[in-house]
């Protein structure tokens, strides 16, 4: 079997030849229906962020024709929202980089090497996925206090990197294990060592999976309120989730303010996602190394 060398052009060519059929129509209907269930809630939250709490309760499904900005002014009055966004980006971004680098290396070893104890490592990794955050938070916090890392960026980056590594290793290894052996052999003949092979072949070839992992890890890290509240609660370092939760927790019953808090957390992420999803698409369709 030759390594897959295809590009978007070919895919489109082979598929557009299919005739439009009843089956395809059905598929479009299903897909559209599902996409509505995902778009509407977002719109709902956005819409309700312009209402007062009681209107959210009593008529949450009407359009906010007269947008009320109180929620936004409350949110912005209290806080330095920009700084928190920056904190979030620094901490979640670093987490992603660490996870990709370290997780990628481990995944490479696990998927392409044969050695004793590999199965054991896999089993341990699966078990690791199951450890609930509540079970580790107190000892981790003690550790961070002892190393004076509480309320510093590292105080969130390090535990979150550890928390997301397992997922990244398993998913990346799953992908790498299906990469054709020939690629590896060719590189070997070229005189690459294992490190170069990882950097020059496996990283680029696995771009789609690295892209997916980037998104997920970033999201999890960005939305991880529990760790943020405990490890980095100080104003100068706290990320946006912690900030917004603080705004809404005192008035947990203020649904309007809650909707605003959610909108403010989700919106930037959504914009970034829409922007980078193009690149992911590219990664997905390229599929393999060119040439």
């Amino acid at each position: 079997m030759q390594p897959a060398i295809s590009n978007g052009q070919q895919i489109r060519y082979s598929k557009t030849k299919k005739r439009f059929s009843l089956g395809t129509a059905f598929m479009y209907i299903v897909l559209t229906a599902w996409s509505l269930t995902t778009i509407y809630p977002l719109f709902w939250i956005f819409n309700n962020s312009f209402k007062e709490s009681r209107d959210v309760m009593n008529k949450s499904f009407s359009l906010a024709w007269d947008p009320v900005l109180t929620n936004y002014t409350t949110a912005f009055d209290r806080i330095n929202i920009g700084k928190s966004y920056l904190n979030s980006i620094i901490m979640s971004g670093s987490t992603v980089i660490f996870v990709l680098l370290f997780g990628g290396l481990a995944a490479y070893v696990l998927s392409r090497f044969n050695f004793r104890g590999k199965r054991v490592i896999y089993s341990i990794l699966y078990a690791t996925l199951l450890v609930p955050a509540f079970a580790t938070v107190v000892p981790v916090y003690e550790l961070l206090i002892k190393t004076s890392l509480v309320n510093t960026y590292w105080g969130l980056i390090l535990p979150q990197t550890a928390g997301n590594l397992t997922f990244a290793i398993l998913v990346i290894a799953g992908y790498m294990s299906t990469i054709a052996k020939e690629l590896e052999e060719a590189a070997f003949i070229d005189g690459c060592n294992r490190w170069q092979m990882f950097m020059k072949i496996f990283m680029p070839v696995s771009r789609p999976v690295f892209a997916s992992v980037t998104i997920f890890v970033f999201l999890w890290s960005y939305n991880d309120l529990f760790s943020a509240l405990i490890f980095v609660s100080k104003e100068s370092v706290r990320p946006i989730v912690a900030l917004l939760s603080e705004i809404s927790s005192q008035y947990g019953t203020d649904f309007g303010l809650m909707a605003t808090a959610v909108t403010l957390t989700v919106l930037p992420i959504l914009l970034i996602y829409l922007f980078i999803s193009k690149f992911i698409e590219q990664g997905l369709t390229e599929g393999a190394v060119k040439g």
Partner: protein
Amino acid sequence: MKGDRKYIWMFLFPSAAFLTIFLYYPFFKSLYFSFYRTKGFFDKKFIGWDNYERLFSDKMLGQATLHTLEIMLYVIVFQVGIALVLAVMVDNITKLKGFFRSVFFFPVVISGTAISLLFVLFYNYNFGLLNNLLTSLGFEKVLWLSESNALKAIAVPTVWHYVGFYFVLFVTAMSKIPEDYYDAAKIEGITGFKKMVKLTIPLIMSDIKVVITLAITGTLKVFDFVWVISRAQNGTEVLGTYMYKKAMVDQNFGYGSTVAIYMVVLGVVIALLANRLLKSDEITY
């Protein structure tokens, strides 16, 4: 390859270090706590296996396990199922592919708490959307979160939230199936549903396994939805909420840790079973 041993060591080391310091060490500390009766953070007293004995006579824990398994069933069947179907469909269409790919992922972006809140307003007895609809159509209001319904009602957002997540993993997996496979299938006249069952699914089996494992482990940790929507009442107590209650609300870390260990053991057993059931030859191309 020569010198591989060195690389195995070097490449695994950073991950191993991170996991050991920030996951395994704390976890073993929890294991240590599980042999103590704790009061808050300051008093602890060695009590041997007492916490484990309590585990086996704990009726709430038994119920929480059953509820978790029920949600797990819904998640595996519907969440993974829907994600797979959507992925296959998107793989088979030509127009709007990118649109669907981006949009299906949206719910994953929203935090679980926010989605739970949305569903609180759906299900609320007095002014929820569903009951508003019913009354405007002239029906009686329904108690959506009654003892017989509540768990299913919570399963709906749980399933819906992460469909997009598995969808993306499946699409990623399908993207690496070489086009020649499909061309060959086409020549032999294999299309549509048959193609999905005979070609696509077997080819991404290893990814399906990973996804099912992720789904299982994810379900064991379900927390926000239950906590926000039903306060873990009316037959919706799950392992995540039970452990949280014991460790954080009751501040009984000893028993809370014991529950956490039980969760890990249970998860490993289920994951191994699932792996056994899904056993098939890995395909490489």
